[in-house]
């Protein structure tokens, strides 16, 4: 089997004999090394969350977010190469505002996700461009229904009840499968997600990290907004204490 570095990986315009495009695979690898991100479709809305390492004590808390609003009702979280993800978000915002200018209506989450996917796919076709090293999760409300999508660097887009990406995605995947999502609200989910994200950190717990969350739900009147910081911190601390207690075997 042809492995890396055998000449088939120099450009997205080349297949290898097994039919893989290595540059796209490498871009997907970049997202697997990023901070864990989670999307959960709960009973009354969708929660998007992520965690990242904080490299230095000098960095201001709450700066450098990677949860973004795209329209008032649609939000996104990104992982992998963050500047790549940010530029996709900027494109998504443009698509959304042009759509509403042209059609006089808010863009549906399905249409926006498709536009984002097509945009990312474009960058896998030409030798002069490199694929985005970022996975994007989009969540939005449309006509009393909440929709969750994930797009990876190959431009593949799928709709989900729940999705994970990044370093801790496997651990979080197993934890999510234990939950009954139809029964919990986004407010309940904040606690569960904090637990998962903290548990999934492979490095020692001493490394500083920051959790970022946004939700679109009945509670937020169908708008995508950041989860209130005090509430999120409260749940984070509760999750941390609960995990430590379980580890001590109480």
């Amino acid at each position, binding site marked *: 089997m042809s492995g890396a570095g055998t000449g088939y990986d120099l450009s997205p315009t080349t297949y290898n004999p097994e039919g893989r495009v290595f540059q796209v695979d490498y871009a997907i690898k970049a997202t697997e090394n990023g901070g864990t991100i989670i999307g959960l479709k709960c009973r009354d809305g969708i929660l998007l969350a992520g965690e990242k390492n904080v490299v230095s004590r000098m960095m201001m808390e709450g700066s450098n977010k990677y949860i973004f*609003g*795209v329209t*008032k009702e649609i*939000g996104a979280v990104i992982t992998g190469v963050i500047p790549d993800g940010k530029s996709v978000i900027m494109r998504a*915002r443009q698509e959304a*505002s042009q759509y509403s*200018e042209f059609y006089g209506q808010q863009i549906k989450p399905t249409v926006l996700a498709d536009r984002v996917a097509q945009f990312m796919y474009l960058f896998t076709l030409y030798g002069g461009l490199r694929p985005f090293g970022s996975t994007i999760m989009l969540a939005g409300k449309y006509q009393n229904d909440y929709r969750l999508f994930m797009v990876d660097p190959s431009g593949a887009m799928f709709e989900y009840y729940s999705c994970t990406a990044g370093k801790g995605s496997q651990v979080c995947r197993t934890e999510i499968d234990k939950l009954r999502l139809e029964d919990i609200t986004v407010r309940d989910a904040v606690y569960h997600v904090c637990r998962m994200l903290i548990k999934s950190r492979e490095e020692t717990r001493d490394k500083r990290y920051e959790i970022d969350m946004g939700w679109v739900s009945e509670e937020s009147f169908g708008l995508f*907004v*950041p989860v209130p910081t005090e509430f999120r911190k409260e749940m984070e601390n509760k999750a941390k204490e609960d995990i430590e207690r379980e580890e001590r075997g109480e």
Partner: protein
Amino acid sequence: MEKSATVSPILTGSSVIAVKYSDGILMCTDTLASYGSMAMFKEIPRMAAIGKSTLIGASGEYSDFQEIIRILRQKDTDDFIEHDGITLNAGHFASYISSVMYGKRNKGNPLYNSLLMGGFVNSQPYLAYIDLYGTHILGDYHVTGFAHYISKPIIAAEWRPDLTEEEAKILIEKGMKVLWYRDARASDRIQFAKITRNGVEFDDPYKFNSDWDQESFKNYSLNPLYPYN
């Protein structure tokens, strides 16, 4: 390169009146869009909300008003999705749109409107007059168009900073009635809207009563200066 010259307005709204009162700003327009001298659309709104922060009313070209609403609502959305704890208020929108209007005026391609914008800036009620030239004036009460001549003297005589909503409504309705008597492009179906610290609220439009059998109208020919006796 876009080339366009000023055209005269085609579908127009007449006056807007707005006053500061105890809870915020109260604004009123009639619900008429005129096609020259034809009263073409008699039940259209000439006021709009931009998010929760701003109430805007316009006279002049109706399509330009729709464009201004679209521009400002997009700005409001762009600000909201930043989620940075900062929100644009009526003063920001007023400064922005007046700069846009000044720039277009200098290129000979104006947005043919006079706008009144109300909201709160630094927790204080804010009311601005903005026109097609790019003029931007703040005040305790404002009017546009014909109402400068007809309604403003009435408002100016009785305005106080501590008007209740009822008192402000009565005062403005006085101004709207005289416009119906004297402005050939006005209508007797009016709508009130207010912006308070809780946001923007629109009242249902209604038709007010008017008396065309007044002695002074009927006996106009008894005026000693009437030239046709």
